[in-house]
Every structure is written in structure tokens, then in C-alpha cells.
């Protein structure tokens, strides 16, 4: 499938790894990445003009500097309306706290919660839905 997947995570190693995995899965045609929520919002805003560049899937980390995952979601909800397409957001975090899981359910934009490490299967799952 040719979906554009967006990674928002501050860990560069993780980003590298995940990119590799996504490559292996051949689920995405393009991978975007942002080191934190702020940049992600900026980037997405810029890409609004280019619907074909706009990601379909966002894999969102929670613990990030400047703007963390939840903050991002707040902003995301606000600017969702101007997005050219539906974006599926998945939380990918090393946190296993139940509170985070619960919180993720409160956002109706978040379709799933995955804990790191992200496996190939996870990616395929994400890509399928």
C-alpha cells in the first residue's frame, strides 16, 4: 500500500529502527518524521497544501520535549479540520502505564495504542487498518 506514515518521536535511534521496519513491511510509500510535537504540527500545517504529501498514518510518541504527545493531540484536534484527509493516529510509547492507555482512548482521533518495541506485525496491522 502506498500510505504515507508519519513518525513523531524524539529518539533518533528509534526513528531509524522504525523506518527500517516500515521499509521491510513495505507498508508505506513515504515516511515522514518529526522529533517532537511542535515540529510535527508545523510540518503538518505546511503539508496541508500538499495533500499528496500528507500522511495517512501518524505514529505518535508520548514523551517528547517541547511538545509531548498529548499536547500534540490537543493541537491536532484543533487543526484537524483543515487536513486534506483522514489521518489515523496511533500512540506508540514505551510507557505501559494504564493511565496513558486510558487517556489515549479519550481522544477519538487515536485509533490504537502500541508499546515499544514496535514489531513488523504492529506496522502491518497499522497499515492494514
Amino acid at each position: 500500500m502506498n500510505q504515507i506514515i508519519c513518525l513523531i518521536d524524539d529518539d533518533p535511534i528509534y526513528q531509524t529502527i522504525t523506518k527500517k521496519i516500515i521499509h521491510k513491511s513495505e507498508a508505506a510509500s513515504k515516511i515522514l518524521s518529526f522529533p517532537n510535537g511542535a515540529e510535527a504540527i508545523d510540518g503538518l500545517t505546511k503539508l496541508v497544501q500538499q495533500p499528496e504529501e500528507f500522511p495517512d498514518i501518524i505514529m505518535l510518541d508520548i514523551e517528547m520535549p517541547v511538545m509531548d504527545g498529548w499536547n500534540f493531540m490537543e493541537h491536532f484536534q484543533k487543526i484537524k479540520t483543515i487536513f486534506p484527509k483522514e489521518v489515523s493516529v496511533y500512540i506508540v510509547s514505551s510507557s505501559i502505564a494504564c493511565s496513558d492507555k486510558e487517556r489515549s482512548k479519550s481522544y477519538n482521533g487515536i485509533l490504537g495504542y502500541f508499546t515499544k518495541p514496535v514489531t513488523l506485525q504492529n506496522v502491518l496491522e497499522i497499515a492494514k487498518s
Partner: protein
Amino acid sequence: MKIENKWSKITGWFISRPRLSTFIVFLALLVLICPLVLQRYEIIKENREQEMSNILHVVQQNLNHSLKNCYTTTISLAMIVNDNGEPENFDALAKVLVESNPTIDAVQLVPNGIIKYTYPNNPDLIDFDILNTKSVREEALETIQKGKIHFAGPLKLKQGGLGVIGRLPVYRKGKFWGFSAVMVRLETLFKSSGINSIKDSRYYFQFSKENPKTGRTEFFLPNKENFADKYFQVLSIPDGNWKVYLISKNKYGLISEIRPALVLTVLFCFIFSLFLTSLLKKPAELQLLVHDQKNKILNDEIKFKSIFDHAAVGIAHVDSRTGCLIEVNDQYSRMLGYTFEEMRNMSFRDITYKDDLEENLKQLERLKSGEIRELTIEKRYIHKNGNLIWVNIAYSPLWQEGEEPSSHISIVEDITSKREAEDAIRKSEIRFKSLFEDSPIALWEEDFSYLKNYLEEIGLIGKNREEVKAFFDANPEVVQKCITLVKIINVNNECLTLHHPKTKEDLIQRLGDVLNNDSMDSFKAQLVAITQGETRLTIDSKVKKTDGEYRDISLRWSVMPGYEETLERIIISTEDITARKISEEIVIQSQKKMESLINTIDGIVWECDYNTYIFTYVNQKAEEITGYTREEWCSDGNFWANTIHPDDKTRAVNYCAIESKKSQQYDFEYRMIAKNGSVLWIRDIVNVIYENGKPVSLKGIMIDITKSKEAEKDLSNSLELVTEQNKRLLNFSYIVSHNLRSHTSNIQSISTLIETAETEEERNELVKMLQNVSNTLNETMLNLNEVINIQTNINLIIENLNIKDNIDRIINIVSEQIAFKKAVIKNNVSPEIFVKYNPAYLESILLNFISNAIRYCHPERNPVIILNSYIENDKTVLEIADNGLGIDLTKYGDKLFGMYKTFHENPDSKGIGLFITKNQIDAMGGTVSVESEPNIGTTFKIYFK
């Protein structure tokens, strides 16, 4: 009669005016005696005159004699002049003449007026021309004129002195020849005449010469003053134109003679008149006396008459023998209804009620016989209209003792009303008696007068209550004596029933027995009441019935009105209150139980007025719990509000006010300040009490919940602490797990990828990544270790560190960075400031802040870092201010010191520095705060403990 009358009138007039009469008499006498005096005066005057004329006569005679001598001498001298005009034997003759005549001093022959011959010889005189000398001429001529001897002078003599010259004109052959003269000195003249020798001091002489021509008069004797106003007699001697005066010295000389006589006279008159006065006075006085007496008698009569007429009691003048009414006054007739006319012919027997008449007469006989001198009886009179009136009659005899009875005065008083009143009293007394006797309450009538006297004797009356009480307590024998002094006048039937004595007398005797120890107190109370002058007393006491049974009685002791001073009549009532006492006791007991119940509740049971909030009741616990006494609780309506803690006051008071308006029970909590200042937590449960639908009071319980509140607080504190710890722990563990997990998950992923790596290149890449990750993991572990160490380190080395020095050291350490970034660091910390700190921590903290400040400097300017220190709220504060990028505190404020939180895109920032720093500061007991503005700068403030 008439004359007599007239005479007595006149004398009366005189008598009644003694002074005037005296005066008149005085005058009269004076008038009478004056002529006598006058006469005497005349006599004396005559005498005087006689005397004077005698003297003068003598003088005259002498003078005449002398002058005669002179004349004869001159004649003799003239004889010697012969017809030729020649004197013969002048000297011899002259000598003889002069010697034989002592009065003559000198002789002269003056032919033709010229002195030719003198004896004694005086040459000065020779050839002195008399006729031509002016001074003597006149007189000489006069001599010639007269034709006989003429005496010239007195004149100044050539020889000196004064003298007279007698000249005889001598004619020879029918013509004037000259003079023959004699010279007599004046003194000689005077001497011979006897003028000088007058010894009588009353008169004096004056000798004058009158000049017929000129009319001038000369005086030649001393005392030449004018004597015209004096009495004098004159002797004139024409021979020389002389006058001899005999003058009386005193003008009033005569008067002085009679003066004593006059005085005597006046005195006599005066004395006589005085005598007369006193004589006259007597009758005058008598007259006055008589007049007075008459007046007095008149007055008395009037008085008596008016008394008689207007007395409020009936007065009758009665003939004692017949009993007839001689005279009665108005009241009497009014009393009996008859007029005086009617009564005149009546005797008292007619109007006396027949039943009383016999006794009346009997008594009167006694009076008449002299057995008694006065009599008072009560009897009935018959009024004109037939009614009987009771009267009280007092008889006073008008005859003297021992005399025959003549008449008497009866004084009659209408006592009808009094008698009626007496009857009424008697009736009521009977009633009272029966009341007394048959009263259901035991009554005693007692006489305390002896007792009162005794108490007075021993000086207890009027002493103060406490003294008296103490005295009685200390002296039981006195009390015993007092008991014996009480006299029982009477007891009623109930009393007898109560005490079951055999008879009244028996009871009266055994009063002492009736009063036992228990009733001693009530008796003492009676004694005290007496000493305090009280007239009533109510006291509960015990009494022992004669059968030995004890009863409770209420004893009422009261003094009958009118007997407050003497205490002769006291009424004591004893009411059997045994039953009442028992029920009282029951009530008291239950009250006590209630009270103790209330007091055992561990809370303040209170009741207060709904409106005023004044406490009407608080139990004992109130004092135990709050320290305020029950009196203080109930003192005023503000007590409750004032004891509430000021912080809770408004809330509590308002809540109470609001809730009280509702009719439900409510409770609330607040703090109260106890008397000793400590704070109590109170839980107040309040009920509103209604009466007739209106709220009247509030009732409730206040429970001391201080302990439980404190426990609560401790608990909540602990809870807080634990929660905090938990939170931190959770946080920490969360962070830890997250961070570790990210690395481990990476490792996992990488290792999985390595397995599925397609190329060697890829594998190498992956291996390198693995290395990276494991390094990072290691670092993280170390960081976490550090953090744990800080949090759990209990044995920190504390040293006294100088902040300034440490800062300088750090500046040194980061000097490279400083140089690189061209930073300016100002260390304004005072070198005096020291803190007790762990040196490693301090270094780490300072390093972190300073390097942060350098790292996060603003790209457009050189970093300027200013370090300041000061004291704020007793804490040492270190302030680190920079002008760097600043932090958006609104976004990141709470995450600033969190773990692994970074806010700027700085590759070096790991997000640990501030976290560790904060932990270190916390471990040392301080705090850190931050102020920042994006793009302006940041200021960190570290508070040292």
C-alpha cells in the same frame, strides 16, 4: 363728796404723774426759795456798799485832813508874806511847817507866779514861772480864778516823781501877790489818805484827775483799766478836781458770795423733789398694780368663759347639795339635747339613767364627805330624744378641803362611740380567740420581752449577724438560758395535738424539752433575728413530738404589730411539713441525679436564651474543659462569641444564626479559646426549643474534639506525605520505566532487525546503532543512579561554604565555554555569605545553572549572567539571572524540573540537569523558584535553608 372727789382727782392726777409733779414741785420750791436767796444777795450787796462807803469815807476824811493841813500850811505860809510882799522868816517857818506836817513834802512861795522860795531848798525850782509855763499854767490860773486853794496835779515834779501842788492865791493890798504852795508827793498823799494801805483784796483804789477844760481824765494808780462795768464808789475832791474811786475787784463778786447758797438751795430743792417722787411713786405703783390685777381678773374671767362656752366637752356647774344645774355650757346642752333654759331647772338626777343613778349617788356622797377629792365615773345620760349616751364624768369640787360642800364642776365626755368600739373589740377578740384556738396550724403566743432584755444585758442587740451567730454557737449555755426566758402566753389546740402534752400547762413547762438539738438552730435563728431587730422569720426545723416522733416543721416567727420594741407578743406558727419535706427530698435527689448525669457527660451541656445568647445553664464540664467558671459562662450574651477563635468566629456565628432559624437540630465545628489560651476544637450540637410556637432557647452539647481533630490532621498530614511520596515514586518509576524501556525496546528492535538484516552493511549499521543504544542506556542508568543517590542519601557531608568562592571556581571550570560564547559573568555575591551545604551538591547546582545559562543564551546577544545573593524572609537567597532564551513558563512551568524534559532544540540538553539540581536542593532542605520570559531571560532563585 364732790370736793373730795375733786381733791382725789387732783391728787390722783398728781400721783399718776410722779415725774411731772416732782418737776412742778421742784420749780415751785425754786420759785419760793429764790427770793430768799435774792434777799441775801441784796444784804450782801448792801454790806459791800456800806463797807466801801465806809472805807471811802475814811479815805475822804484822811484826804480832807491832809488837804486841810495843806490849806492851813499855805495860809500860814501866806501869813508870813508881809504887806510888802516879802516873806519873813520863810525858812524857819517853812521848816517848822514841813516838819510838823508829815504829809507835806515841800512848801513854796511863788510871788507872781515865779517860784522864789522853796523848802526843802531846790535850786531847780527857783525862778520857775508857773504862770507862763504852759504845762502848769492852767491850773495856776484856775487857782486864781477859784480864789481859794487849788491843788494842781498830780503832775510831774521838777524834782522828779509825781506830786500835787496845792496853791493858795495870796493877795496883798487887794491885789494878787502870788501863791503859797505846798507840795505833796503823790505817794505821801496816798499814804496819808490810806489809799495805799487798803488791805482789802476785794477792792482797789483809783485816783483820777479831771481836767475841766479839756475833759481829759488821768489815772494815777495801777490797774488803770476801765472799771465802768465794775461796781465802784466815787469820792470827789473838788479842790483838785480829783476823784477817788473804790472799785470792787470781782464783777460778780457778790454773786460768788451767794453761789454756795444758791447751790445749796438747788440741791435742797432737788432732794426734796426726789423724796417727793419716791413718796408719790408708791401710790402710783399701787394704782398700776390694782389696774393690772383688775385686767388679769378680767382676762381670766374671759378665758374661763370661753373655755366654758366652747369646750369640746360638756361642762356643768352643779350645786352639790341639790344637784341642780347652775350653769352648763353649749356642749353639755348639745350632748343632752336640751337647751340651757330647759336644763336650768333640772338636776342631774333627772337625766341620769336609772340603772346608774344609785352608784352615781353613792360616789357623790363620798366626794361630798371629803373622803375623796376627785371622782370620775362612767354612766349613761338620757338624751332628750330618749337615747342613752355613755358619758365619762369627772367631778371637781369647788369647795376647799374641810369646807362645806358648795358646788362642783362636772366635766362630761361623750364616750358612746368609745364604748361601742370597745364592744366591737371585745367581740372580735372572742372571734380571734376562737380562731386562735381552733386554727389547723399550731400557734404559739409567746412573750420574748424577758429574753430581749437579757440579750440587751449581754450586749448582743444591734451587733452584726456574724458576731451574734458565732457567739451563740460558742456559748450553748447562753442559748439554754435564753430558752428558759421565753414565756409562753398561750398555745392553741392544734399545738396540743402536735405535741400531745397532757395539758397546756404541761407543754408550757416543758418548752425546753420540745426544743431539741435540731430545733436549736431554729431557736438560734430566732435569737439572731431579735438581735438584728427583725420582726419576721421563717425557718424550717425539726420538732419532737411527745411520743418521740420527729416531724419537720416550718416555723414562722413574727412580732405582733405594736410590740416591736418590747417583743411582748410574738406569734409562732409551726406547720407540719413532713410530707412536703419528703417530696422535696425526692425532687432534690432526682435533681442531683440529673446533675451528676449531666456532669459525667464528657461534653458541655448548655442551655442559652434564644435571643440574647446568654447561657442559662452549663454543666460542670464547662469549667473543666474550657477553664471558664460557670459564672463566667452565664455572665453575658457575648461570652460564646468572644471565646470562639477569631478565624472561625464569623463563620460560626453566622452559621449558628442561620441554622437556629430553622427548627432542625444542627451541628458545626469551630475552635474555642480556653481560659488558659489553648485552642480547643469544639463540635457543637444544637437544638432549638420552642414554647407556644416561639423559639425561646437553644440547648445543646459541645464536645471537645481537639484530640480527634489533631489526630485527623496528623492523619491527613501523613496521608499527604505518603501521597506525595507515592506520587513521586510513581512518577519516578514511570519515568524510569519509560526511559529504560525506550532503550531496551530499541535494543530489542535492533536485535530483531539484525536477524533479518539483508546485508552486511545493514548489519554493521545496526550493530553500531546497538552500541549507541547501549551506551545511552548506560548513561541513563547512571543518571538514575545519581538521582536515587541524592534522594536516599542520608549521610551528606555538611560544610560551611562560601558561595562567592564556589561561584568563582565554577566560573573557572567553565571558562572555555565562557570564552567561546563571549559570556560575561558578574559575581555580585557578597563574600560574607556562608551556607551549610554539601560541597559536591553546591558545585553541581552552581555548575548546572551557570552552564545552562551559557548554553541557552540568546543567539542575538552575548550572554550576561548576574549572580546576586540576599536575605529574604530569614532565608539566604542566591539569584542567578541571565538574558538568554527564557522559558515559556505557562507551557512548561510544571515540567521545568521534571525528568528528561527539554524545552529547546539543544542537542546537549538531556532534560536531567534541572531535575538533579532540584533534587539536590530539596535534599539540602531548600527550594528553587524560577521567573522567566521568553526571549528576555530567566532568573533562578535558590533558597537555602
